[in-house]
Structure formats: structure tokens, C-alpha cells
């Protein structure tokens, strides 16, 4: 068991965003999270990552979880090389960052401020593969990616499920049916 949510609810101010939800994720599993805007997908991912605490209920996690926000967040003033090296160091890991950057067709020495949103998305995927978390939490990973990027994403997700668990929030039904073993639908509140 990688991740287990037991009867969690989350409230912001007076609004209940998530009510009494239970969920479990196994290693080797990919779950698609679908639902309209405002149905609490991002909140749920952040709860799973441990970035938010549920108002009620419990979250149990095994191993390391990483959360990929949409749009991805990077320091503007660093280059891709610097950013990846710091990330690797902070997480206490090693990895072939040069090979990964090449595979995704990204330049090493350009400040990230000059990256397009599609390039940033690719870099975020590079970062995730290098850091290799046990739980992948992705918020709309398909947005801003071109056809080639999308193919790379699907490839990465297939690799990831071999050793980890994946939860991805998406509006892309085709992507969900292509990579996910099951789908979790969040309704309106």
C-alpha cells in the first residue's frame, strides 16, 4: 500500500471542497482523477502529497511522493542544468540529467525564464523521472504539451508504473483511458 486516504474531508473557510473521501493506491497502479473545474482535483492531489492537511480523516503514505503542479513551478533565474542539479542534491539522489534533457530536447544553459510553457512542462517531467518518487501526483500533465511531448509523457507514465504508483488529474479522456487502470470521478460538491 503506497497511499491510503481514510474518510478525508477538506474545508477552505466555509466551503467544503472534499467530503468524506476514501481511496487507496497500490504500487504499479495508475489512477486517473477526472471531474469538472472546481471539483477539488488539485486539492485532493495536494492532500495526497501532504502539502495540505485534511480537515477530517487520515492520510497514510509510504515512500516519497512528488507533486507536479499545473503550470509547473521553477526558479526563473536558474538554467535547466542548475535547477536539476539542485533538485537532485536536495533530494539526495543521483541521475543522468544530461541524458534526460537530451531525450526531451531541452537546452542545458538557458535561463528558465526563456522557456515556453511546453518546455517547462517537459522539464517538469524530466525532473520527476530523475527524482523517481514512489508516488507520482500530476496535475493536468498533458496541458501545453505538443504531440511529441504527449508521446513522451505517456512513455514516462508507463515507465513509472513499473516501480511506483501514479495519480493524474486530467480533462483528457483519451489520455486517461490510455494510461490509467481505473478512474476516480470527483463530482460537484
Amino acid at each position, binding site marked *: 500500500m503506497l497511499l491510503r486516504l481514510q474518510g478525508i474531508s477538506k474545508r477552505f473557510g466555509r466551503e467544503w471542497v472534499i467530503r468524506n473521501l476514501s481511496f487507496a493506491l497500490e504500487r504499479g497502479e495508475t489512477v486517473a482523477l477526472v471531474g469538472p473545474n472546481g471539483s477539488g482535483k488539485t486539492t485532493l492531489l495536494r492532500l495526497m*502529497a501532504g502539502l495540505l492537511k485534511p480537515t477530517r480523516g487520515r492520510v497514510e503514505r509510504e515512500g516519497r511522493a512528488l507533486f507536479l503542479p499545473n503550470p509547473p*513551478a521553477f526558479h526563473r*533565474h*536558474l538554467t535547466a542544468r*542548475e535547477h536539476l542539479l539542485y533538485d537532485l542534491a*536536495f533530494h539526495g539522489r*543521483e541521475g543522468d540529467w544530461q541524458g534526460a534533457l537530451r531525450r526531451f530536447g531541452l537546452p542545458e544553459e538557458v535561463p528558465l525564464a526563456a522557456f515556453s510553457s511546453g518546455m517547462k512542462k517537459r522539464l517538469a517531467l524530466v525532473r520527476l523521472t530523475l527524482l523517481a518518487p514512489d508516488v507520482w501526483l500530476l496535475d493536468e500533465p498533458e496541458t501545453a504539451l505538443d504531440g511529441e511531448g504527449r508521446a513522451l509523457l505517456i512513455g514516462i507514465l508507463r515507465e513509472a508504473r513499473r516501480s511506483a504508483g501514479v495519480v493524474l488529474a486530467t480533462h483528457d479522456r483519451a489520455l486517461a483511458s490510455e494510461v490509467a487502470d481505473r478512474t476516480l470521478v470527483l463530482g460537484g460538491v
Partner: protein
Amino acid sequence: MRAPRVGKAVQAPGRDGEGMGAVRRIWLLAWRDLRLEVRDRAGLLSVLAFFSVMLFIMALALGPEEEPLRRAAPGVLWVALAFGSTLLSTRAFALEVEDGTLDDLLLTPGGKEWIYFGKLLFQMFLLLPLSLLALLMAAGLFYLPLDRLLPLFLTLLLGVLGYTSVATFYAGLLARLRGREVLLPLLLFSLVVPVVLAAVRATLGLVEGLPLEEVQNWWQLLLVFDVVYLTASALLFPVVLEG
């Protein structure tokens, strides 16, 4: 600027984030932030401008006689340093909040204390040269004698550390809050009044040429506050930052 080598990341032995691994991460985080701040320039320049404007205006207001200027100098210097370091500590987390990268730091394995120490170290890197600069400016504008530079610098170190230890903690706590620039000094000043007070008295003693044994007592007081605030802040930081 050359960073310490990050290429050879070593897998931390045993549990992540312990021992040497943590020290290295702290060092790297401080260094990275320094790099970001230097490349961004805006924050650094505003702090610098703030220092100089404040010292100039105070010197104009209190001058031109030498004696009152000299007596006022330690107070002015420390108030300028306190405000300046409040600006900087907001910057330390604004770097993460503006780019949305605070979550990435929080998701690193192991305890969260290293983030606190990294941000603290980053501010000390910037504040120590800045405070030395402020001291030199005060020497020029306020006739502050610099013949005891080493004890003066020790006072700066102890005072700035005490102030920054609490400032970093609160800046982290309030990082995502609207109006943090207003709230932070409000909260900080009541807590760090003892530190600023002791630092002003130590500086005053040094300027007035009191024997070192007399100043030493203020140093002791500063040291105690530094240790207590640093320890308490480091322990509380992960607790308030989670969730």
C-alpha cells in the same frame, strides 16, 4: 559566481536528510538563494537603497554636531539593520513563493529543519557584508569610531543572528499570506526588542570606549537570546510549515 560542486550528489547514508547530507543541503540551499538573489537584483538593491537613505536622513536630522550624532549612531544603525533584515527575510521566502517552488522544498525527504537553516544561512551571507557596509557608512556619517572593529563586528554577528533567527521563522510561517510585509515587522519587533536593545547597548559601550568586560555582559545576553531563539525556531519551523 561559482557554486559548490553539485554534480557529485552523494546518496546520503542511512536515512535521507541526516548528518552530513543535511549540512550539505543547507549549504547548497543558501548558495542557490544567494545566486537567485544576485541574478534578480531587485531585492538586494532595495535593501541597499533602504540602508543608505535611512542613514543619510537620520544623519541630516540629528546633525551636524558631532557628539549627539555619535551617541545616536548605535541606535540608528540597529534600527536600520532590523528593518533591512526584515526586508531580506521576506525576500528569502518570496523567492520561493513568486516562482511557486515552496512546495518542492517541502516535498524533499527527511525533516524540514534544513530549509530553515538554509534560509537563515542565506540571509546571514547577505546581511553580514551589508551590516559591515552599514557600519562603515555610520562611521562616515555619524563619526562612529572604528578603532575596535573586531568587537564591533562580533556585536553585529550576534545581534543579526538573533534577529534573523526569529525573522526567518516568521517569514516562513507567513510566506503565503497576503500583507506579510506589514505583519512581519509588527510581530518581529516585540519579540526581538531584547536582542536589539542588547545589541544597541553593546555597540554604545564599544563606541564610548567602555572596557570590554562591561560590554561582554551584553554579548552574553545576546548569545543566550541567539541560542534560545535559534533552537526554538528551528524546532517549531517544521511544525508550522506542514499542512
